[in-house]
């Protein structure tokens, strides 16, 4: 659609994003591969933000050249096991009328 950016525009945004986030890639073709991931993420962000009914905005940041799997495998390492929540305490148990 005309609201979608053309590739040249996206490339310019990509180059600016690389500088802002201090990114540089080693492998041959890596920069182009990352550009495609970046362009897909940007498209998804702009589609989301074009919906006025959304309760939150999305935007470019340090993760914008990562696939969902890459992001998940590096940054989502919290773990909880049932045994760790065995000692539930009443200290903060809410009762009607609590002040």
């Amino acid at each position, binding site marked *: 659609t005309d609201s979608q950016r053309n590739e040249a525009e996206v490339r310019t945004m990509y180059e600016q994003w690389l500088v802002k986030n201090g990114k540089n890639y080693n492998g041959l073709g890596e920069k182009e591969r990352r550009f495609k991931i970046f362009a897909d*993420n940007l498209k998804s*962000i702009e589609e989301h933000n074009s919906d006025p009914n*959304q*309760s*939150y*905005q*999305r*935007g*470019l*940041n*340090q*993760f*914008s050249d*990562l696939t*969902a799997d890459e*992001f*998940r495998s*590096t*940054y*989502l*390492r*919290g*773990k*909880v*096991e049932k045994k*760790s*929540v*065995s*000692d*539930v*305490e*009443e*200290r*903060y*148990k*809410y009762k009607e009328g*609590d*002040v």
Partner: protein
Amino acid sequence: LPDEVDWRERGAVVPRVKAQGDCGGCWAFAAVGAVEGINQITTGELISLSEQELLDCDRGTDNFGCTGGGAVWAFDFIIKNDGIVSDEVYPYSGNDTAACKAIEMTTTRVVTINGREVVPENDEMSLKKAVAHQPITVMISAANMSDYKSGVYKGPCSNLWGDHNVLIVGYGTSPDEGDYWLIRNSWGPGWGEGGYLRLQRNFNEPTGKCAVALAPVYPIKSNSSSNLLSPSVFKLVLLLAFQLISLALL
């Protein structure tokens, strides 16, 4: 309970938003933030503490450095370890390749806790009561939040049990988007609202939005003699001692 709480305004949150970098150490940042908070609330001292000490030293049973872990077990380590040092003494390196540094705990200022407890699960009102008393660590499922920028997150959640350890530092209500939890993340100030996320609160599922009410955990610090050793009192005692010595020498 207060309609709004923001522990940043009460000085119980280190102003600098920290960044875990390419290390899966969210659990250490959540645990450290909760201990920084309860320590300030109890002693009046806001001391930025060391996530790296947890990554290097609390390793091998439940927590595994950059590979992952949970704040709940980090609290157990801090109790066993007789405290945690500041990140000035033990700075963040963003990896877990180094061995645990032997810190001379007697000469270094450490912050101690006396225990940890779990908020009644799947109960956002109890979680609200807990947050009204201190910052609380929680697990959220955050895979769809990588490019969150602003607003109250009501978007999709990646799983039912949570995969990212973060710290609730307050709650409130947005006129447009309704009730929210104020969450301190560890992805740096460039992510979200200056490093913070507002997550939908009073969700129609007992687990809360994105599992936020599934396993909230907090450290306990009694108002005991350990406060006499808080840095400011420590300095005061030192000054007084020097005064007395100099008077005696005159």
